[in-house]
């Protein structure tokens, strides 16, 4: 097993390693994919409470993350910039954990990290660290806004648990509000809605990622909201399902202004007197339950509008 360490840049040797890594990354970065704004490391992170964290694998510098203290108890993270191929499970997580510990030691109220569109770091953050977007909607993290600012505040449970042992985070305001959507194409927030990956060439829409458009083979997609109102194009009332799935339920295909959506119909009696083809419905969300970490999962369905 390679030995990974995270340390705070302190000695000249540390700074040289960090500068060297940054130079390598800048040289290797393809056009249009800027390395986070580290500037000159030692002057960017010159403040008393600023830190540059350096990840080493078997002694070799493989990643760095800067933390700059701002006003109002904010800690701004810069990076992480990582050299190794382990982009998702690599040193980023360790670096961020360490920076968060640092922020906690400073009694910081907010930790802010800017992440660029399409950066796989975004999903890692959401999955592993529990960052939530500034507006409190977790799903908004996913490649919706460019560039995206994530704001993270550690909720301090009663008794002030030891730093870095919890991944429970919430939005500004400090309430325990973390919610996750059942699927990543459900966007929570004030107006929950679905989003699709739309082919920029032909407009075909997909709820999962595609390497190329199945319709026209183009490779550019944009994230678009899907209309929340629609009509039932097909349904079935499932009486027998796999063990563990509560029945009966109404499974349906809803035509949302030209985008077909697969979903359950909710808030309707599951019988053929109450469910009909062509029925007008609207997206609605409901809580599925809370996991061991206190995170609430939110599912969606379509409810009759009449």
């Amino acid at each position, binding site marked *: 097993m390679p030995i990974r360490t995270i340390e705070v840049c302190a000695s000249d040797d540390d700074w040289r390693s960090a500068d060297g890594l940054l130079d390598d990354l800048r040289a290797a970065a393809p056009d249009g994919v800027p390395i986070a704004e580290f500037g000159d490391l030692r002057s960017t992170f010159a403040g008393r409470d600023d830190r540059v964290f350096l990840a080493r694998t078997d002694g070799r510098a493989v990643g760095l993350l800067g933390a700059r203290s701002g006003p109002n108890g904010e800690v701004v993270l810069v990076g992480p910039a990582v050299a190794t191929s382990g982009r998702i499970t690599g040193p980023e997580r360790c670096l961020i954990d360490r920076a968060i510990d640092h922020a906690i030691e400073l009694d910081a109220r907010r930790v802010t990290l800017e992440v660029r569109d399409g950066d796989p770091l975004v*999903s890692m953050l*959401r*999955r592993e660290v529990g960052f939530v977007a500034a507006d409190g909607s977790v799903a908004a993290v*996913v490649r919706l806004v460019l560039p995206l600012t994530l704001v993270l505040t550690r909720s301090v449970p009663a008794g002030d648990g030891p730093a870095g042992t919890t991944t429970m985070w919430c939005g500004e305001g400090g309430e325990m509000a973390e919610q*996750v*959507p*059942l*699927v*990543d*194409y459900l966007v929570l927030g004030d107006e929950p809605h679905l989003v699709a990956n739309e082919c920029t060439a032909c407009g*075909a*829409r*997909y*709820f*999962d*990622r595609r390497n190329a458009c*199945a*319709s026209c083979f183009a490779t550019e997609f944009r994230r678009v909201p899907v209309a929340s109102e629609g009509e*039932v*194009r*097909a*349904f*079935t*009332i*499932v*009486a*027998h*399902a*796999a*063990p*563990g*799935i*509560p*029945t009966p*339920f109404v*499974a*349906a*295909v809803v035509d949302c202004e*030209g*985008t*077909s*959506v*697969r*979903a*359950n119909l909710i808030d309707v009696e599951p019988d*053929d007197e109450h469910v009909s*083809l*062509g029925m007008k419905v609207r997206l609605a969300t409901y809580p*599925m*339950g809370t*996991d*061991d*970490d206190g*995170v609430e*999962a939110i*599912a*969606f369905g379509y409810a009759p509008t009449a």
Partner: protein
Amino acid sequence: MADDVWILGINMTKFGKHPDLDAVDLAAQASMAALADGGVTMADMGVLAAGNLMGGGGLGQQLQKQIGQTGIPVYNVSNACATGATALRTVIMAIKAGECDYGLAVGVEKLAGAGLLGGGGKPKSDGTQWEPSGRFGAVAPTDGRIGTATMPGVFAQVGMEYGHKYGGTSFELFARISEKNHGHSTLNPLAAYTKAMSAEQIMNDLMIAYPNTRPMCSANCDGAAAAVIVSDAKLKTLSTEQQRRAVKVSASVLTSDPWTESCQVLPDVNTLTRAAATQAYEQSGVGPDDLDLVELHDCFATAELVHYDNLMLCEEGGAVDFFESGAPSRDGRLPVNVSGGLQSKGHPISATGIANVWEVCHHLRDEAGDRQIEGAKVGLAHVIGLGSACGVHVLEKAAA
């Protein structure tokens, strides 16, 4: 245009429960019977295509060890419910390519007691943490929360979608389609179930996924089917009896689903079936009106309806009228699923795409006994596997 190819020998085992026979036994039984039916042996075969989904893979080689290892190429194929048709088509392609004169295609499944397919038989439960995973970043199982993955539910929606588009469907209509097939099965001694059921009985049976009740779902069972294919040139060297009983493969088509908007969320079983039928009619020069019987993929009663339309047995949008006219009954204008169909004959998945060809051949050879469609000269066999794959074969009686 390559020369014609012919079905020289064909067989299906009894469909049903075979607790004492494994998949290899069943495949061997069907294969040896198909070889005997064609008056040939494994020594003649130049290629073997073997279809099986639920086994551990490598059926073809296991089968050779039971019936004859001659070193010929083996293609183990897997294409959902179109697996049997894919095996058949693989052999047909090899012969059309001129690689050999004879080939054996076999499909087999051990499916008795398999239960609900599509949703997975394993209990679904949420983890202790909402951890996103998979292509949709789902934090928990989505089956049952975002629609249904079970086959009865998926195909129920296929039928309901047709009803939404064209109108005229009802629970009772779908039940009567099932009633027809269960009625047909009473004449098929190889069917898994041979009991007639009234529409009322069918509607009052166990509801699985509205409007499909249990008897409206394909019957999981064990079974195998096998066919020996021969080139036109070789057939001409065989006995007059072999030539007389040979059935011409006038069209052999396999399609997958082209992109359609809605197929991203609900399988579109229509577009690829229509495409396969169109190609098959073009290849064979046979039109829907020339058909004497059709075995189509009635995996659920709701599916049979849409395939009347997809196979162009009726005008577009006219499937309900077609059924109501009595045409698809065995005494109607264009009998459909006189074997009893998947709902009562049974659906040992990989066997189905050869078993339906066997049924058609049986009639074209005038060997179907009590359920013979008199004077049958041309038939069509259709299967569809979700994902999707569609196989259509048009078969013609040998010219006397």
